[in-house]
């Protein structure tokens, strides 16, 4: 399998009032085409920074100190803003943690999907309308025709996340980065969303970076897993190897802790 | 330590310096000038700034510099007393609304909405028309018509503090409402109130000078920055110093007070 995305030696610092601190330190990872890469870590360990740095959507006080991010052989960090712009969405799409805040509150669901289709993929409005219904069907939103007219605040969190996934798919991207896409949802809805992602991955041949603090989700979804701790990747391997035979102390502790919790 | 903080919060330091300077001018006004602010000199009518009259004279030959010095007394007095009244009112009404809630709260907040319906100056001018444009009346009326912001702030603060454990604890011990409000709630809500009070001072100074400029505020011959400018309007194009300096005095004072307030707000946020 070929590598679609390769991160090499990536270091990112944040400038704050108290001084500089390192959010990512010498991170190296690779994503193989058509697979799912899980990134596991506690909150605040730099998972989101990693996700955001892939297409340089970092907050303005963040600075990439060094490293490369290669997408199909091109280093994103040395790419011009225009080229980078063409990559965002068209090649790599995001799914955010909180679907309600990641959808524009003053635009209807349909307007947001159609906007993307018309502007990115140059559909006519009529084509875009049909395509948006197909997409909502694909992510299993009931009654797509009716839901197109709804605004985000009128839908449940689970439905909003499905819409968010539909929006990500509307860009026709090959790589999907999902940053804790289910942490704001109920457990039953979480399961359904994860099923959907798995389903889409095989159906559309997507490559996915799945970021989570939940071991069971990572175990279910990802082919490879990276364990992140304080801005560093401390272990990176096939998922079954990590879960059956953890090498690092931190990974072992993490697994034991979850084990304990599940037994209570 | 304090010096270092002052250097970091430049807004606050500049504001403080300006306000202190004006305060000192107001206090020591008689020592800073040779001229009586109300002394008319027919030989010196509308003379431009010179070594004799450093900021020139007005249409009655009165020394502009001393009129401005004594005018600062009016401005500061209005600022302090009007804000004292409005802050006190805002504190009391806001605390009652926030602490008791329920219908008392909705009634008082409706009253706040109501007071905000009147266009700026309309209520003040109506009352002045009926009473009398004296300094005391102006200070009271400005105070009575500008407490709404403070009331809202105090109410919001108290609403958020009320449920905290130390207040609940005080209630359990059996402390009286008055004691809880004055000893526990208000001191914890003071930060934003002080900022609002200082910014309110700028508003009061501005309103007084506008009223005096319209001839409905401080009455001549008592100098006020606003009523000095009446003369400026009459001599537009003849005596530039009469337009420039009094306005500059108002402008710099309000700027200083605003800087002080904003600087405090920056501190308060941390």
């Amino acid at each position, binding site marked *: 399998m070929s590598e679609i995305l390769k991160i090499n030696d990536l270091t990112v610092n944040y400038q704050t009032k108290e001084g500089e601190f390192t959010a990512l330190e010498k991170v190296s990872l690779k994503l193989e085409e058509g697979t799912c890469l899980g990134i596991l870590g506690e909150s605040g360990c730099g998972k989101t920074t990693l996700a955001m740095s892939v297409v340089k959507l970092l*907050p303005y006080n963040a600075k990439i100190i060094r490293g490369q991010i290669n997408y199909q052989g091109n280093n994103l960090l040395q790419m011009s803003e225009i080229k980078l*712009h063409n*990559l*965002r969405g068209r090649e790599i799409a995001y799914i955010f943690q909180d679907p309600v*805040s990641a959808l524009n*509150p003053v635009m209807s669901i349909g307007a947001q999907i159609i906007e993307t289709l018309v502007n*990115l993929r140059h559909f006519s409005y009529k084509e875009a309308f049909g395509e948006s219904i197909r997409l909502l069907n694909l992510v299993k939103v009931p009654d797509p025709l009716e839901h197109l007219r709804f605004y985000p605040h009128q839908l449940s969190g689970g439905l909003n996340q499905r819409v968010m996934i539909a929006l990500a798919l509307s860009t026709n991207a090959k790589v999907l980065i999902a940053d804790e896409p289910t942490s704001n949802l109920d457990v039953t809805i979480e399961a359904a969303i994860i099923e959907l992602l798995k389903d889409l991955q095989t159906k559309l041949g997507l490559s996915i970076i799945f970021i989570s603090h939940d071991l069971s989700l990572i175990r279910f979804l990802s082919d490879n897993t990276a364990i992140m701790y304080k801005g560093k990747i401390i272990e990176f391997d096939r998922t079954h190897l990590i879960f059956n035979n953890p090498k690092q102390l931190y990974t072992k502790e993490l697994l034991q802790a979850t084990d304990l919790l599940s037994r209570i | 330590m304090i010096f270092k903080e002052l250097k970091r919060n430049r807004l606050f330091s500049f504001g403080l310096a300006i306000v202190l300077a004006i305060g000192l001018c107001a206090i020591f006004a008689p020592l800073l000038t040779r001229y009586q602010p109300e002394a008319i000199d027919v030989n010196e009518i509308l003379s431009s700034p010179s070594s004799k009259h450093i900021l020139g004279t007005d249409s009655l030959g009165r020394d502009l510099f001393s009129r401005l010095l004594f005018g600062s007394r009016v401005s500061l007095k209005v600022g302090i007393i009007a804000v004292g009244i409005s802050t006190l009112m805002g504190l009391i009404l806001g605390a009652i609304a926030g602490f008791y809630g329920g219908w008392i709260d909705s009634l008082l907040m409706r009253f706040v909405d109501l007071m905000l319906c009147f266009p700026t100056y309309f209520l003040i001018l109506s009352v002045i028309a*009926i009473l009398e444009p004296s300094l005391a009346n102006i200070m009271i009326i400005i105070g009575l018509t500008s407490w709404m912001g403070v009331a809202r702030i105090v109410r919001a603060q108290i609403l958020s503090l009320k449920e905290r454990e130390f207040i609940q604890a005080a209630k359990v011990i059996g402390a009286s409402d008055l004691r809880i409000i004055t000893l526990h709630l208000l001191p914890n809500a003071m930060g934003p109130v002080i900022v609002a009070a200082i910014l309110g001072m700028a508003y009061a100074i501005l309103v007084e000078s506008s009223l005096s400029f319209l001839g409905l505020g401080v009455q001549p011959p008592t100098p006020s920055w606003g009523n000095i400018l009446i003369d400026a*309007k009459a001599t537009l194009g003849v005596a530039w110093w009469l337009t420039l300096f009094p306005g500059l005095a108002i402008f710099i004072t309000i700027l200083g007070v605003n*800087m002080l307030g904003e600087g405090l707000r920056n501190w308060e946020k941390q």
Partner: protein
Amino acid sequence: MIVYIFRRLCGLIPLLIGISAISFFVIHLAPGKPVGIQSDLNPKVSLEVRARLEKLYGLDKPVAVQFKNWFLRLLRFDFGRSFLDDRLVTEKIKERLPITVLINLLSLFLIFIIGIPIGVKSALKPGSFFDKVSTSLVFLGFAMPSFWLALLLMSFFAVTLRWLPVSGIKSIDFEFLTLPYKILDVARHLILPVFVSAFGSLAGISRYMRQGMLEVINSDYVRAARSRGLSEARVIYNHALRNALIPIITILGLSIPGLIGGSVIFETIFAIPGMGRLFFESVMSRDYTLIMGLLVLGSVFTLLGNLIADIAYAWVDPRIRYSR
């Protein structure tokens, strides 16, 4: 939406009663005894005035009856006749209203087209040269007394340079001009007043706009829009600006009392025969009925302005539009 408007209208009723109550209270401050003559504003009419007020408002009757009568009169927009020339108060106000409304609308427009772009531009690059300059100017603008600004502009553009007329809204030869020149003449007279009246709110609006835009730009949905690869212009104008503009509607609504109140100042300075100047004249001549009429109407206008702002807000924000 209709339910929302209806509810808002119902909410106005207590405020209307309150406005009439406060103005009723103000009349009761009217002098009952002769006031000293130290103030030249004070005509020696106090006793006579009191007698007329008593007759007009029935001040000799019990307070409850007085208030009921007063309120019923207000509902009929009956403010009585001017003390000065015995003309109907409503009529006097009606003929002064259009010019004030025109100037206020023009200055709202000016605030909109200047304040908002400044705020947006500084928010897009916080800390840039433009942002620093505009932030400082806003700070200076807040401290600028509008009547002093009016004097400065008057002495510079009208007296020194003679580019613009000093005051009034028409030149002396207005009657002899052809229509296009008439319009031009009025426009030239309005430039300074409109600018001065807009100036006060300009600083505020651009500052709120900057703050609102900064918040929106760092929000998830703007980042999400960007991550979808939409063009920067689309992200800024279609996603960010649309959301940041919503709270500005409320701020514009809140600036109405300041605008109406400010018209007293600049209409007096520029000698514009509008409602603000009428108010000033009525205060100077102690024309109590006219003062009361203007006080009540001025606040009713504010109320209506706020109502329109609220409805506009609800209309552009689907979160309110589609809720009960």
